[in-house]
């Protein structure tokens, strides 16, 4: 069981390195904020300990854990959304490909940039 978990952990680290090193510096703050909301998954853990709590100390610990995790997850996602909303290609100008994602153009250059910086 532990070994399987450990394998999952290590492989996830590699996936994380791969995916995140392609995020351009422009988005590093929303990235960190998004990563922050993802570790709000600890809410699931907090729910589990609340379920197994059957005494006062257990309830208090579970309450604090649930509140902490809920703050983390709700606040994290809302603030990330708020930030990303501000990133606009052109303000109130009718540029043709404004909405269409262009994963080839900008992302390849920025991943190259970041790759250079990270190595």
């Amino acid at each position, binding site marked *: *069981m532990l070994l399987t*978990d*450990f394998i*999952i*952990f290590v492989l*996830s*680290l*590699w996936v994380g*390195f791969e*995916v*995140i090193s392609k*995020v351009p510096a*422009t*988005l*590093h*703050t*929303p*990235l*960190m904020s*998004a*990563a922050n909301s*993802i*570790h*709000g998954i*600890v809410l*699931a*853990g*907090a*729910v589990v300990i609340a*379920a*197994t*709590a059957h005494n006062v100390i257990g309830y208090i*610990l*579970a*309450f*604090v*854990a*649930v*509140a*902490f995790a*809920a*703050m983390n*997850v*709700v*606040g*994290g*996602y*809302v603030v990330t*959304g708020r*930030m990303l*909303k*501000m*990133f*606009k*290609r*052109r*303000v109130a100008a009718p540029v043709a490909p404004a909405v269409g994602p262009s*994963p080839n153009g900008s992302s390849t250059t920025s991943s190259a940039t970041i790759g250079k*910086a*990270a190595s």
Partner: protein
Amino acid sequence: MTGTFNTVIQLIYLAAASCFVLGLHLMNNPATARRGNQVSVAGMVAAVLATGVLVIHLGVIDTTGWIVIGAGILVGGGLGLQAARKVRMTAMPQLVSIFNAVGGGAAALVAIRDFMSIGSGVAASVSVPTVLDVIIGSVTFSGSIIAAGKLQGMITSAPVTIPGARILNLLLALVAVGGGVYVIVSPSMIGLGVVIAASLVFGVSMVMPIGGADMPVVISLLNAFTGTAVAMAGFVINNTALIIAGALVGASGGILTKLMADAMNRSIANIMLGGFGSGDAPVAVEGAGGAGVQSIAADDAAIQLAYAAKVIIVPGYGLAAAQAQHEVAALADLLESRGVDVSYAIHPVAGRMPGHMNVLLAEANVPYPLLKEMDEVNPEFARTDVALVIGANDVTNPAARRPGTAISGMPILDVDAAKSIIVIKRSMGHGYAGIDNELYTNPKTSMFFADAKKGLAELTASVKTLVA
């Protein structure tokens, strides 16, 4: 029946983890990033609901347990929502630190509670991640609160050092790790209490000596810690969603930590031990002037800008400190309407967290294609008529290219390659590194002595009179 049920729950966790990965992947482009965040939210909702169903299925939860969960979500979620809606973009690093703190704290609590319920006779496969979770989670909790306090200005952002601080840190680390080993060998609540206390104090004493300018590294590092703590919590309660999510965040924090440290040309160890990362606002003790420095009036600077073909704006933290993002965007808009090619050169550590300056400019409605990264923009300076430097100092200092200075080897923006340079600055004060900026004495450089906000407003007004 139970087997099928567990399989379904595990598959939902797998779907949630896939959503997190996909969500992060979509953040590689500002055009798709919002969708990425939504995908991530969907994964989170699925994982939490699945956990709720799992808990019901196990049938161990009592009514009080449900009340605890409901009340916790209402209180915590409400606070998080309030904070997220109200926070100013300049205060984003503090908020991220607070979320790091509560995330790490929650992870530690999960392990502590699990340890309490199992008590003695825990297998090493549980006690080792439990101890790691408690140590990392506690350090993150107290360290992030101190970091947030420093960023908010509630605690001095100058490095706070006490005699023997390093020895104290070493002792605390030894107590935490030694206590952890002891708890693994012979589980006891008292032992765990000692580990918690030592870790909490270590978090405080670790962050206190670190200065304001080093905050981007500290926040990234604490982010990595939180992710790792959450992954450990996943080991403790044997939940793959927590392990995968925690590992992703750990990787993200790790990458950002490395990028930030590289951008300052300092090792992570050097930053954590406290160095020149000194105070917040550079103290303006010296008066205007100095040898070989030429100053310029608003009208003359405006003429240079208005008749340039290409202008690059170099914003630094001073711009954010002066709350002048909107003023700089207004000037850039005006210049663009005159046909000037305007872009922004953003150094990785311009701001108090990775990418902070980009968010501040995006808030001022600057279109993101104009925000250029250092490696992308540096070759462009040679083709630039005017480089307008606002509130950036050390990251423009050509002295970094020579060995033997405090910033030697630090990657800088090649502002001095531009045909003409205008620096908006209140005085000849030093940056964080505390050394003279050789850019200011360059014959191509003109100093416009003004507060960033007022100076930019004056420039905009002067350019407007040229048009009229």
